[in-house]
């Protein structure tokens, strides 16, 4: 009777708003993946059914994580961290090459992205390190240690190369350090060093990465190659107007101007923005902002610093993905190939995002309560 009662309590203590928001985002994602892979007359590409499968798998994972105590994962964080580094090394050695990058690992016929796993592992290990009792977060040594912990997966992911995912790690680490109470001068100092080192980073970038950044700075430079997606997604978003063209009435992806290979994944936002206009696009942003608020509230009410940092880190990942993905489709940021959480199609990413959500829920369930 006792465990059953505890489970019931756990379920009742969920963050109902967050669950509602995530369910809404998943439904939105499925709706517009349907639209993006629509071939007319009810013929829908394989993206849609695959996405349903991944949503189910991700939800099961999220549900399981929700019921389990997050402190277990915090305690095992080092193992995960080590495992994620191992996988990242493996992907460089035996990974599958897609579009010139080694990002995928073939595990029993299923392609997975270790970088997705590594993101969560990094957040867990940082939450453990920065949230453990007695850590002096204001010391420079702690900050440096945290940065080194983040730098290992960062460099390995950059080597794949997957600039977008790697770049997401940087603000996430800074968010967690800041929330953990790191001295501002240390953070600014780090930022300054980063700026000084960035020319060296430029030299280590691949040609296509430099091209993308150059094209972002001047989209007309090469409109048919690297600038094409940026231009076409801006046309898709812009032509949506205030109220959009209506579901399935968007033409940019139907006619192939927005390449069909990317429209259900990295460029799902232009599909949505073209069909639902400014109203739909800003509602989507609002939903993400509410979800982030839920995560931050969870961080606030967490029983221990580790849970708090875990929620902050997951929030940081979510925010970076949303901001970079939408920013690149509307010409604010260079094209980096980063998907939109809960909405874009993609297996590993869907599972990792929902896993992050499950972890935050797990923290939320075990929050401080007035009656405790």
């Amino acid at each position: 009777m006792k465990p059953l009662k505890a489970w019931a309590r756990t379920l009742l203590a969920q963050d109902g708003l967050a669950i509602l928001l995530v369910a809404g985002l998943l439904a939105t994602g499925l709706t517009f993946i349907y639209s993006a892979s629509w071939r007319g007359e009810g013929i829908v590409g394989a993206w849609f059914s695959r996405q349903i499968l991944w949503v189910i798998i991700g939800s099961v994972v999220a549900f399981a994580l929700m019921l389990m105590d997050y402190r277990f994962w915090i305690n095992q964080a080092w193992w995960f961290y080590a495992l994620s580094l191992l996988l990242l090394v493996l992907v460089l050695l035996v990974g599958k090459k897609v579009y010139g990058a080694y990002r995928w690992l073939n595990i029993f016929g299923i392609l997975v992205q270790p970088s997705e796993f590594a993101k969560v592992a990094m957040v867990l290990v940082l939450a453990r390190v920065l949230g453990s009792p007695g850590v002096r977060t204001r010391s420079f040594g702690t900050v440096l240690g945290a940065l080194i912990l983040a730098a290992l997966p960062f460099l390995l992911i950059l080597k794949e190369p997957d600039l977008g995912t790697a770049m997401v790690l940087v603000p996430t680490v800074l968010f967690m350090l800041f929330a953990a109470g790191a001295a501002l001068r240390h953070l600014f100092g780090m930022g300054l060093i980063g700026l000084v080192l960035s020319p060296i980073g430029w030299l280590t970038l691949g040609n296509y990465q430099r091209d993308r950044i150059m094209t972002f700075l001047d989209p007309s430079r090469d409109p048919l190659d690297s600038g094409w997606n940026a231009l076409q997604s801006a046309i898709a978003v812009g032509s949506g107007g205030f109220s959009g063209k209506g579901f399935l009435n968007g033409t940019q992806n139907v006619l192939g101007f927005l390449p069909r290979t990317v429209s259900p994944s990295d460029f799902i936002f232009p599909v949505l923005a073209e069909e639902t206009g400014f109203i739909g696009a800003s509602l989507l942003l609002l939903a993400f902002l509410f979800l982030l608020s839920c995560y931050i509230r969870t961080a606030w009410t967490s029983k221990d610093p580790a849970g708090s940092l875990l929620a902050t880190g997951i929030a940081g990942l979510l925010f970076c993905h949303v901001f970079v993905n939408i920013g690149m489709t509307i010409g604010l940021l260079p094209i980096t190939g980063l998907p939109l959480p809960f909405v874009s199609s993609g297996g590993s990413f869907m599972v990792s995002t929902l896993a992050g959500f499950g972890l935050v829920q797990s923290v939320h369930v075990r929050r401080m309560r007035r009656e405790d």
Partner: protein
Amino acid sequence: MSRDRSNQIHVWRLLLLWGIMAGLFGVLTVRLWNLQVSQGREYQRRLVKQSLRSVRLPGARGRILDRRGIPLADNRPSYCVSLFLEELRRPGSVQRTVDNVMTVLDRLSEVMDRPRALFSQDVRQHLRRRTPLPLVAWKDLDEEAIARFMEHESEFPGVALTVEPVRVYPLEQQGCHLLGYVGRADVSKLLDQAEGEDVEKFHYYLPEMAGKSGVEKRLDGVLRANAGGKLEIQVDVVGFKFDEVLRRVPGQGSDVVLALDARIQQAAEELLGDDRGAVVVVDPRNGDILALASAPGYNPNDFVPSIPSSIWNRLLKNEGRPLYNRATAGEYAPGSTFKPVTLLAALHSGKVKADTRYSCPGYYQLGSARFRCWQHWGHGSIDLKSAIRYSCNVYLFNAAMACGPEAIQEMARSCGFGRKTDISLDYERPGLVPDDEWKRRTRHDGWRDGDTCNQAIGQGALLVTPLQLAMYAAALANGGTLWTPRLIHQIVPVDGDPQEILPAEAAGGPDWTPRHIRIVREGMREVVNAPDGTGKRAKLPNIVVAGKTGTAEYGVKGAGNKMTWMIAFAPYENPTVAVAFLVEDGVSGGTTVAPRIKALLTQVFAEAETGAASSPEGGEG
């Protein structure tokens, strides 16, 4: 739980993080507003520009009908097999699509038992330049090929039978010079004729026909549907058709009803036969062109949609110059058909009266030169009417010398010679009425009495067109009204009232005293009806015909090359028909042309009778 540990989470830090995130989302929202609301229209325009293609659809060309509604130029459907490339495309390189199209073409060729008309470079070019449009693989298929295709149609997805209108001239060679022909239109000229204040530009133009000569050319703007249809094709990123919307239904050109009578035209052409020559038949009551024939001719159907080079070369090499419209562009010496002009001028001057007699010894002595009458032994002493009847040159020389060359030239001009008649046909020639000024300018010599004598009998440098001569014959018939030739009766738009073209008198027409013209007409009646008249072979049993023959020498003197003429009108009292008939290199007007005039008028009046007759037993035999 205590919150006093060293690594305690500070609420303000979390709130600040939230604030940063909310602020950056605000930036996204502002950017979205700019893109979608402020610049929404601009992006909408760019979307349309990259994904919409407009096609001008040619409208149906109007028909050309004769005065009774017999179609002279019409449209017929041509059945084509067309390939819809968006259904035949293959992913990957263009070559794969080209290969697939070629495979389909080969299979079609086998099924229809027709040689393949397209090569891979044609397909490639179409894919590059006209991707969203169907590719026409075979045109103008016969029934058997159509049946063969239809039998196998289901095996060929992306291939369909399409219909194109093709210009057709049902009477073939008949009236070819007058009707003209059509050919592939020039797109740049289509723009000029587009209706409305803005010249509408299209991405693609479908092949359209434009008049290249004759009425087809002159009335092209009327016959052609100027407001073409507009088809909007939505194309995908590669340029293939995704969807299409018909924005505007193509218009339809107006029908043109000619004054021409197809049966008279046919009779005229049959009478010309294999000879070179021209016939113009006019209604003297209103200037209607009832027939306008020139021989040899050509088949305008050969020109649609474009003329094969073998036929074109044959037409160009033909010494008879079949493309050349002798009736309006041919300039000839009128010979004796001109004599009424000289006599009318002489009468008008008052120097010669109806009863003035001159003696004809067979020649006219002018200084040391002797101008011969065609009757070498002479006509004796004759009056003006007899001079017409016998076509006596000497009488004419005397009369011309009496009234002077200026009077003749003035009279000739008032009869419409020396200037274009303004018939609605291209390449009309003005002819030439030579005078002193002309001679000084071109020959650097003054006008001499010899020139006057030559001019008096329609020789010398004087040149007329058969059309001018017909209009002048009509004026003689109606007593002095020179009409502007009326080629077109009506323009009939598809919607709206028919536009009538009213008869119009030519400016500067003759001003004949009724007494004078009566004498000349009487003389012309005797030409045909007197047993010794020069045009007696044109005499009809039941209708009084009046006329004047003419035989004009040309080329090297004494070589015997002659243009043989006859002008005529009938019935004498209230003429309804006037004719000018030319046969090049005939024997003489009286022997070569007069019988043909007879045959022509017989047919005209038989037509008129049967056309108007209500009782079958009305004819006498």
